[in-house]
């Protein structure tokens, strides 16, 4: 079944039911033929992927928030149930207002007919401006191919009417795929259910327009966004915010610099003329 064009497709990742199995990472690598980085010990819980980059388009984060019971018998925490050990399958957010797409000088980064953000591998020249702009550290530089890479939301599968590999593989349906407007409804009801159960910190991230105009890959989080290394609404700013102040600062400096130069050289000219005049008078 083909997907409707011009209707946003995306992910709703419900972190409250993520079990950290990393099936999404494996499925992503399998489908997209990503070799992956050499395994390494990160000393960070069960995480040996490290971060999203050119080889990891899905990354399962493990965030341990187990209360410090030093010197005491460890007792089960009363806030168990997805809050003491957070897990989250991170991915490109396919922002409505995408920082990477904004700064890309070659137009290699485009918005597809499914409203996803896609890097055209044959157009990218590897300038890495998108990496400097992406607020989530999603994009990585592929040293072998010399281009920037990130999650495509399985664009090739979407064109064939297939579900992205990660969502297909997720055993708990923590990663839900579909039309974004429909996913919003699912997310709203799930949040309401969790809040009813007493999970006060549960919140939707990217469901509304506060973060980059809304995210096509949005999340249900069990804590503040910054705990998951996601910029909160106050820090979610587009790179172009610095265009005007940056250029104003540059123009002001240019004007002051030119005036300073004129002063230095004009003064010299006048002094030179005065010296010439006094020489002539003698």
């Amino acid at each position, binding site marked *: 079944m083909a997907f409707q064009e011009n209707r946003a497709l995306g992910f709703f990742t419900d972190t409250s039911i993520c079990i950290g199995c990393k099936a999404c990472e494996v499925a992503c690598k399998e489908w997209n033929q990503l070799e992956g980085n050499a395994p390494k010990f990160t000393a960070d819980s069960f995480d040996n992927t490290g971060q999203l980059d050119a080889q990891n388009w899905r990354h399962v984060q493990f965030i341990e928030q187990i209360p410090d019971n030093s010197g005491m018998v460890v007792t089960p925490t009363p806030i168990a149930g997805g809050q003491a050990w957070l897990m989250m399958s991170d991915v490109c957010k396919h922002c409505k207002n995408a*920082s990477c797409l*904004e*700064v*890309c*000088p*070659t*137009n*290699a980064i485009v918005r597809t007919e499914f409203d996803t953000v896609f890097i*055209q591998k044959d*157009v*990218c*020249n*590897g*300038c*890495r*401006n998108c*990496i*400097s*702009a*992406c*607020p*989530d*550290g999603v*994009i990585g*530089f*592929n040293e072998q*191919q010399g*281009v920037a890479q990130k999650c495509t939301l399985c664009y090739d599968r979407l064109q064939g009417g297939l579900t992205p590999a990660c969502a297909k593989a997720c055993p708990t349906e923590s990663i839900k795929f579909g039309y974004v407007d429909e996913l919003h409804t699912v997310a709203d009801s799930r949040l309401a259910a969790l809040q009813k159960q007493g999970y006060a910190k549960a919140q939707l991230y990217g469901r509304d327009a506060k973060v980059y105009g809304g995210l096509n890959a949005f999340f249900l989080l069990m804590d503040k966004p*910054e705990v998951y290394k996601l*910029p*909160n609404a*106050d*820090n979610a*700013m587009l*790179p*172009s915010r*610095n*265009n005007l*102040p*940056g*250029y104003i*600062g*540059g123009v002001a*400096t*240019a004007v*002051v*610099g*030119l005036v*300073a*130069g*004129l*002063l*230095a*050289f*004009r*003064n*010299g*000219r006048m*002094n*030179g003329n005065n010296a010439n005049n006094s020489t002539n008078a003698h």
Partner: protein
Amino acid sequence: MPPAEHFVAPPQWEWWILAYFFFGGIAGGSYALGTLLRFAGDPRDESAARIAFIASFIALIPCPIFLTLDLGQPLRFWHMLVDASDGGLAFKYWSPMSVGSWALLVFGLFSLVSFVGAAAEVGWLRAASPVARALRGGAGLVWNAIGTAFGLFIGGYTGVLLAVSNQPVWSDGGLALGGMFLASALSGSAALLLLLARSRRDVDADTAVRLEAADRYFVILEAVLIALFLVTVGIAGTIDRVLGIWLVLWLVVLAGLAAPFAMARWDMARRWPPVAAPILALLGVLALRALVIFSAQT
């Protein structure tokens, strides 16, 4: 105001970019100084103006090479100017890298023609004397004024390019970075011209004095903008990134800023070689760019 939070990955802009920022700044700054010397200075400044235009073009030559070598796909350098998807022009006024690519191309034309004119005047390219004549008078003033606008842009847009990101330090110092790089480019160019002027007999001694005066103005401007940069980074809560091991480079920057004043005030020029202050200033220009580029990415 809570400190800014950054979860970005570094773009790995390193040595090629540092080299481009340095040489691009010198190219743009030297062109501007050449124009000022030719049209605002004394007629005796003309030989220094010619040196400035020649230095500007020579400094500009490696810039596109550095930028191309930094690309992951160097043979696709032209994608900066032409949209490989549809064959149209690739120009995004809101992307400093896109604007800068075009500005570099246009400035290259201005710098080349001014170089040819200056080279004809010093006898390197006598066949190009008509160019030299055309660059005199009103037409030359217009040409140099437009070239100066592009040169100043090249000197400063690199700071804006860094600021238009989500990187720590760079995006935090967005207001000051462009101006700081430009002021630094002007002071570095003045230092380079002083260095070159002292190696040539045809440069008037008074011209060197005027260049020194201009250099001191530029250094004051640069110092003010460095202070503004540190304040903005401090407010954002990322100042610790530009301190620590980077203090060594800050010392070089400070030495470069202080050198023109120290030489003049304490008469150190008698004890030090006359090239010491300009060389220190140029090292300061390089160090400033290095610490801004690298500190944000480590």
